[in-house]
């Protein structure tokens, strides 16, 4: 190597190091990345969760520090929860416990946090992959989470793999991984290596749950028992089930053809018959019941509501939000298909 080349190499090396380190210092000191006054909402008189209707997480792709911030909707106005600064990729709340799935502080791994009703952390749990779905039983007893695991897909090329676990929300203890549960179909044991589970929803008795079992090109609705660690197949074509507050119907996403496109639909558990709702677009979300009559869901950017009986039209509830949780739905179990829920309209915008 000639002397000239050696100097050129030294100069380029110096330039590269300077550029890399310089930008890193700039990024680390950038005010937007340490600012705490990124206000997701106009906080008008913070309060607890009891009076709120919906909990959501903010969607803001420009600002990573606003993105994921959890807030609630009360009387049509979004506000922060008193004292609770929580940022999640997926969030759920029921009873007196919340479950927040997020990127860990390091930025390269994931964790779940169990929070109380002021959104204060109680337990941290490591997650095996990208957060996908979160649920808590209506009494706040059990929590369920689904994550996507990288490097775990082996049977189908270009496929993916999920891990769904159930935890005790009192102490963060792992109660089971659905892959270890015994599955039956038509009374016979059912087993295959390519089993994948996702999207748990709990019944009023939290020991009973529903979920999706994927094997081959089938997407089965299964009904499970936490304590006995068993599941049985109910029917095909149901993903991300969500049980209505009265426990009679299941809202879900129904795959269109082989593509990753889904229509939202509602299944009657007594007849196992399903009908689509009025949302025409493809929605990839585990729908949530606003009350016994309407669903609430996100298209990834904004939150919408639509009637569960297939009538009407979808209506925008809130812009720039996802992972909606109905805080009122769990107060009205069983027969009380409440009329007053409809009298508290969700504001637009």
């Amino acid at each position, binding site marked *: 190597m000639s002397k000239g080349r050696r100097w050129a190499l030294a100069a*380029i090396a110096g330039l590269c190091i300077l550029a890399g380190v310089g930008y890193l210092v700039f990024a680390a000191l950038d005010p937007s990345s340490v600012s705490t006054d990124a206000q997701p909402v106009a906080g008008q008189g913070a309060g607890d969760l009891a009076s709120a209707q919906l909990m959501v997480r903010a969607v803001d792709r420009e600002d990573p520090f606003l993105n994921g911030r959890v807030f609630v909707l009360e009387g049509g106005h979004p506000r922060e929860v008193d004292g609770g600064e929580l940022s999640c990729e997926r969030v759920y709340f029921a009873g007196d416990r919340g479950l927040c799935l997020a990127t860990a502080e390091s930025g*390269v791994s994931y964790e779940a946090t169990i929070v109380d009703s002021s959104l204060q952390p109680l337990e941290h749990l490591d997650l095996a992959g990208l957060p996908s779905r979160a649920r808590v039983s209506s009494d706040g007893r059990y929590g369920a989470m689904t994550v996507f695991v990288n490097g775990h897909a082996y049977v189908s090329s270009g496929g993916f793999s999920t891990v769904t676990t159930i935890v005790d929300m009192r102490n963060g203890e792992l109660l089971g991984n659905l892959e270890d549960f015994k599955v039956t179909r038509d009374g016979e044991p059912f087993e295959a290596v*390519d089993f994948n589970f996702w999207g748990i929803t709990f019944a009023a008795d939290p020991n009973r749950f529903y979920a999706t079992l994927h094997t081959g090109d089938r997407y089965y609705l299964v009904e499970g028992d936490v304590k006995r660690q068993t599941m049985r197949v109910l029917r095909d074509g149901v993903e991300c089930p969500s049980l209505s507050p009265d426990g009679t119907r299941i809202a879900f996403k129904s795959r269109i053809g082989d593509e990753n496109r889904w229509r939202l639909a509602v299944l009657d558990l007594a007849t196992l018959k399903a009908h689509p709702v009025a949302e025409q677009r493809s929605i990839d979300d585990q729908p949530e019941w606003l009350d016994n009559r309407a669903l609430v869901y996100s298209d990834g950017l904004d939150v919408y509501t639509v009637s569960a009986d297939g009538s009407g039209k979808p209506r925008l509830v809130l812009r720039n939000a996802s992972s909606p949780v109905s805080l009122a739905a769990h107060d009205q179990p069983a027969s009380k298909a409440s009329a007053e829920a409809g009298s508290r309209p969700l504001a637009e915008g």
Partner: protein
Amino acid sequence: MYQVEASKALLKPRLWATPAARLSVPRNVVLLGMVSLLTDISAEMVATVLPLYLVFSVGVTPLALGAIDGLYRGAAAIVQVGSGFASDRLQRHKEVMTLGYGLSAVCKVGLVVAGSSVGAIGALVASDRIGKGIRTAPRDALISLSSTKAGLATSFGVHRAMDSAGAMLGPLVAFGILLLAPARFDAVFVVSTAFAFLGLAVLVLAVKARPDRAPAASAAKPSLRVALGIAADRRFRLLLLAAGGLALASVSDTLIYVGLQRQSNFDPTVFPLLFVVTAVAFMALAIPVGRLADRIGRVPVLLAGHAVLLPVYGLLLSSIGTGGVLFALLALGVYFAATDGVTTALAGAILPERLQATGIGILITVMSLGKFGSSLIFGALWFALGLKSAVLLFAVALLAALLVATPLLMRLRQEPVG
């Protein structure tokens, strides 16, 4: 030779000469290793954060992520043979390599400015893969041409050790940046770009384009017919057959990790750690195993390296503890150290100087086809018959492949080198 190199090292500035001199590894090989190390830091930094970035900042679902990842795998394989031939034909290995490394470096710049356009990111990931496809065959050819035939396996060992060191450092650097500047993916991309251009600068400014064993500039340029004729060369065909067959009977490391997880039931969160343990073992063993191969022969080392997989298969048959998992990971490290660079070294010794890149390109393609086929078959068998039966069938296949490959490769060995 060792003495001469060592005394030179005393006269030269230590920084430049010692690592090469102590091992008596040609400096060009160490420089090529440095290029790979820097480029791998750059590439692995991006690979570590890209899924996070796509899902959390861009808003892609993990499903679409799988599609972006899987879409372009075939392209690189075809590019490999083409770029190998092009660099032999033009007798410009370094320039073709520069094109490959340059393309990947430009892609890193692209990531900084692409923002949240999924289409643009997909195109950049594809171009990056093509860049990797372009550079691999001429790089290995240049390593081979920079080495003496007696030291080929050591040279490849040094390169592979540096290469995997870069792959280990990349995620650590990305991790460190995100600790300093949380969620600033742009900082990761900028630093990755800096590493990519640093690697490119070492290649352009320091790597010798025409090492000693390279064909003279006046030599006849191989035509396509001559190049394709290499596949008809008896000794090279034996190597292709043996290497392809052994690859087909070897279960991929990812599938072995999944199997180990099933049999020992460890927490899936430690899954990425398995790759790290294997990579550390590979990194540490690549040089000593390469030297061993040069001393006692590449063929026995290559065969022994594959044979090490048999006890690993055995571990997949019943439930095992932490010790078993650790043994399997170390054995996989030995397997990589004894096969990855050593196979290429064998090819480097057989192939004529003017067809090194073409031949190595063909070899790499055959081996990756073998590995791809093995994963498909193993996956299907696992699905249909269960893990145990799939492993047993692959153990039988590997034994058979070893029994067939041993006499084939021994024939290579008996004939005079060159």
